[in-house]
């Protein structure tokens, strides 16, 4: 009992240290990367890591696959865009309303969809994403159709407009860190254990008195709200939205981020978002050097291959693998005495 308690306290302590380290890293990064290009990349990574955190809760902990997460992301972005440009709402109220609406939609969709499992669930979420995308394209009167919706206002706090990328960076990452902390708390709570039980076996979880259907819905709604908030932040940063950013490929990209970081590790979300975003940018530079077909989204080849390789060789993602590797390394460093050292 006491061993368990101390172990728990230790993991708690490690968690706090890790969180403090991440916060420090986030605070200091802009001092190193000052160019507008680097800052906007860091902002995008922050936005994607919010979505990925929610996706990890849903896929890694509750074990429910979603190939339509970009739809929730897009709904948040479009709701913010439409409410602020066409109805001239305050951006903050619009953001909350968008999150509430998306969450409600997720709840309503979730009731029939969670009757499905495995590949049927995957296909249903894929179909949901496609329908949302088609709606964005076809409902021209509201969404502006394929050309998109311009003129979204920037955010401001009080009288202070968040015009510079630096202030926006701190806003996005503040939201991202809070989202991460909330998710981490949820994972460590009774709800998190129940979700993992569902992942293990729905029947066993049910027989232990866990309300499986309700918890799965909660996980879906949480992930939808995360995606919606990130979408609102995206819309106010880009000041323009178009359907192209929220299609099936975007959903796959989000799954890839979750998979790279480690589906069942919340910490992996920022890591996966960073790796995939940086990889995309790198490929945009490299690919035109190899092929004569300059235009086009060439990075999708690498996405595809990366996704397959990760799923085959490290299905749990980079974070647990890296954590194990560093643990092994530190243990070896502690026990092995280098032969060339003359003293013991």
């Amino acid at each position, binding site marked *: 009992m006491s061993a368990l308690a101390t172990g728990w306290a230790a993991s708690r302590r490690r968690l706090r240290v890790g969180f403090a380290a991440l916060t420090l890293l986030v605070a200091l990064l802009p001092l190193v990367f000052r160019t507008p290009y680097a800052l906007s990349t860091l902002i995008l990574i922050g936005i994607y890591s919010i979505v990925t955190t929610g996706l990890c809760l849903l896929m890694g902990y509750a074990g429910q696959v979603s190939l339509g997460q970009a739809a929730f992301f897009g709904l948040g972005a479009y709701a913010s865009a439409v409410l602020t440009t066409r109805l001239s709402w305050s951006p903050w109220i619009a953001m909350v309303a968008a999150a509430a609406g998306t969450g409600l939609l997720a709840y309503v969709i979730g009731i029939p969809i969670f009757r499905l499992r495995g*590949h049927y669930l995957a296909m249903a979420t894929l179909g949901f994403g496609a329908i949302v995308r088609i709606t964005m394209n076809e409902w021209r009167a509201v969404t502006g159709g394929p050309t998109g919706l311009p003129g979204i206002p920037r955010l401001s706090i009080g009288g202070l407009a968040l015009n510079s990328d630096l202030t926006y960076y701190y806003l996005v990452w503040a939201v991202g860190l809070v989202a991460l902390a909330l998710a981490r708390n949820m994972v460590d709570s009774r709800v998190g254990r129940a979700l993992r039980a569902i992942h293990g076996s729905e029947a066993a979880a049910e027989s232990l008195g866990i309300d499986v259907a309700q918890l799965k819905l909660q996980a879906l709604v949480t992930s939808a709200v995360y995606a919606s908030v990130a979408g609102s932040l995206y819309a106010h940063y880009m000041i323009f939205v178009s359907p192209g950013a929220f299609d099936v490929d975007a959903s*796959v990209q989000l799954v890839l981020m979750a998979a790279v970081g480690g589906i069942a590790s919340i910490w992996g979300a920022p890591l996966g978002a960073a790796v995939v975003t940086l990889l995309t940018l790198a490929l945009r530079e490299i690919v035109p050097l190899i092929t004569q077909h300059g235009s086009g989204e060439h990075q999708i080849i*690498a996405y595809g291959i990366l996704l397959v390789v990760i799923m085959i060789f490290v299905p749990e993602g980079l974070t647990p693998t890296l954590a194990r590797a560093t643990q092994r390394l530190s243990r070896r460093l502690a026990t092995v005495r280098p032969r060339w050292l003359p003293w013991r």
Partner: protein
Amino acid sequence: MPQFGLEDYLQLFVSGVSTGSIYVLIALGLITIYNVTGVTNLAQGEFVMLGAMGAVMLQRLGLPLGVACVGSVALAMVVGALVYRLTIRPARHAPDVTLIIITIGTAIALRGLALLAWGTTSQALPEFTPGPPANVWGAVLSRQRLWIMGTAGVVLAALYLFFEGTLLGKAVRACAVNRRAAELAGIDAAAMALLSYTISAALGAVAGIVIAPLTLVSYDMGLALGLKGFVVAIMGGLVSAPAAVVGGLILGVMESFASGLVSSGIKDALAYLALFVVLMARTTDLFAPFRRRPIARLSVRRARRPTP
């Protein structure tokens, strides 16, 4: 509102049937793979794209159209075998969802490779037999649509003969029924899985080639077609070929009428809506009343009856 005569409805119906037979071919590929390996292959649409793009490429190289088509099918079969060997076989013990994500990754990688090889421009394949459209009871029917329906019919018959009549086909079916038992009977199940991937790559490629002259082909045509194939395949619970044939024709005709009578924008939304309806109705099996009642259950019930 234009006045619709009987021949207009007939025209919509027939073009719906020909589009539907494309969906049937794609769905049969999905069903073949699912039956033998248990994998839902979301890369099926990319086989369709590879078939079409390959035929265009070979034809551009100066090969006669027929040779280009056959060559393209062969190429797709090689790709299908490679896909199985490189992505599915190493992960065959992984859970369902992992396998699905793998097939999505494969689909994206194939699409990306096509983009790299052929670029973003849409290409066209010439009609198989150019000429004035045929006139069937007042409905104007392009010759390519006849080719599509004819090819689908021939392929269906060939598949039926292969699975029912040949030893190899029966071996594949045995793996679908019970893999372990098939292995005990001396069937190489891994080889049959490879074969199922090859067959469905060929089915996809054929679908892509026959539809290529009607629609421009491009590297990203696969996703939508693959999804529609999936909608059709799922109507038969991913296992039943006859249900897929019926379902494919129904979806094709529905789409044709929707785009003819309402608007073409609604067409794609209709397929996804159908996907939802079918998925939700799946708990209540649509084709159950038409299925033969399992004999085993009857005999068990009879055996339990107390003997006087």
